[in-house]
């Protein structure tokens, strides 16, 4: 409690103090966090091992896959230590086994998970964009316009619409202009409002923590 208060007040004030002593302290303490999180990693590993060890022990459904996890983990750690954390040999630029593992296992797995987003975006759009209410209709129309404008085919189709001039202004304006106006004006307005609200929320939350009003993060409410 007191620790949180002291830390909070000190680091809030640190911002206003130009003396180098406080800057040194700030960088020093951020280095401390590297150490703390390094040591805390052990807790994570214990938790993970416990979970999967029990799965294997209890012969829970699909416990075999926990073996896969352990094998992969130990292989990665073993090879990582063997290669001393080097993905390439610095002098020659040759890949080590560790680097090869990373390149051919981690990279495709990672980018595949990431690319599944493309499918999810499509199905989310299909399900959610129904003109059930006024709000939903606006959501849908804005999304369609922007999606349409972002690709050459959309530009091409839109360019077939006849245009005419009124007092030096082209009507309708190009679709690129419409999207950029939406993004720059409406989007900025909404984002601005939301993030101003968020800022206030964050400040209030921080103050609650510093003054000890909110302390349930410590588990005990006493």
């Amino acid at each position, binding site marked *: 409690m*007191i620790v*949180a208060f002291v*830390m*909070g007040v000190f680091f809030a004030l640190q*911002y206003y103090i130009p003396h180098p002593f406080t800057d040194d302290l700030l960088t020093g303490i951020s280095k*401390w*966090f*590297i*150490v*703390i*999180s390094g*040591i805390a*990693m052990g*807790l994570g590993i214990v938790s*993970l091992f416990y979970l999967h060890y029990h799965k294997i022990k209890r012969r829970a459904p699909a416990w075999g*896959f*926990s073996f896969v*996890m352990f094998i*992969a983990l130990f*292989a*990665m750690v073993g090879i990582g*230590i063997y290669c001393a*954390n080097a993905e390439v040999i610095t002098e020659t630029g040759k890949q080590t086994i560790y680097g090869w593992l990373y390149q*051919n296992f981690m*990279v*495709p*797995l*990672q*980018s595949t*998970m*990431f690319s*599944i987003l*493309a499918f999810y975006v499509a199905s989310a759009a299909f399900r959610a964009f129904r003109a059930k209410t006024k*709000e939903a209709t*606006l959501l*849908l129309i*804005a*999304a369609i316009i*922007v999606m349409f404008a*972002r*690709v050459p085919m959309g530009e091409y189709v839109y360019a077939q619409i006849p245009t005419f001039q009124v007092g030096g202004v082209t009507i309708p304006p190009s679709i690129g202009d419409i999207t950029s106006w939406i993004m720059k004006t*409406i*989007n*900025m*307005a*909404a*984002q*601005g*409002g939301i993030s*101003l609200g*968020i*800022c*206030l929320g964050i*400040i209030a*939350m*921080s103050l609650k*923590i*510093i003054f000890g009003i909110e302390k349930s993060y*410590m*588990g005990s409410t006493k």
Partner: protein
Amino acid sequence: MDSTVIGGWIAAGLTLFMFSSLYKDNPFYRFGEHLYLGLSVGYIIIKVIYANIIGGLYKPFFEDQQYLLIIPTILGLSLYTRFFPKIAWISRITFAFIVGYGSGLTIPRIIAGGIFQQIEKIITPLGKNSATWWDIFSGIIIIIGVVSVLIYFFFSVEHKGVVNKISRVGIYFVMIAFGASFGYTVMARMSLLIGRSYDLIEFATPKYYYATLILLVLMVLILVLYESTRKKEEGSKDNA
């Protein structure tokens, strides 16, 4: 077969494994998932050992005599007191330390970077000498939007009458903005998939001995077999 071809087979296989989750949960996905889990934890452990423990603690402590590092070491170790319920309260000091640091650090930076910068960004376009009537119109729209969104967030005022109407306008702004940014992101997400598809197409070439195609056919066959045996099992269970 050299290492690139083997790598290609592995990459193609894992890609298909992960994509198979789109069909439904299946052994291939589970294999990929657990493999990825293990590898990633292993990778993080290596990074933690070399960067955090050796680079952040061991070297500065023993080689540069930065003895103050004993404090975070104790704080870190105190997290482990959780395994001994009697002294578990010690770990709370560490929580308070981290949380206090985070919240103290945040406040002034949020005031400067969040609130003031936002307000500046919103107001300045109106004051520019070069602003056309269209710019000013857009600027006013922005201000109307920000104000109405902020009013939507008022918690202690009942949303009735004028307040309700303004906050509705705020919600309209939010919805258009969300729709637009949704549409805007689609392109980036699609290029990820395009990248993956290019790789799969490449792995389907003779250079990689048609890795993608062979693996795909094998996977589909095994999945069909797996499904039918499972259905039979379920059927027999039902009968029994």
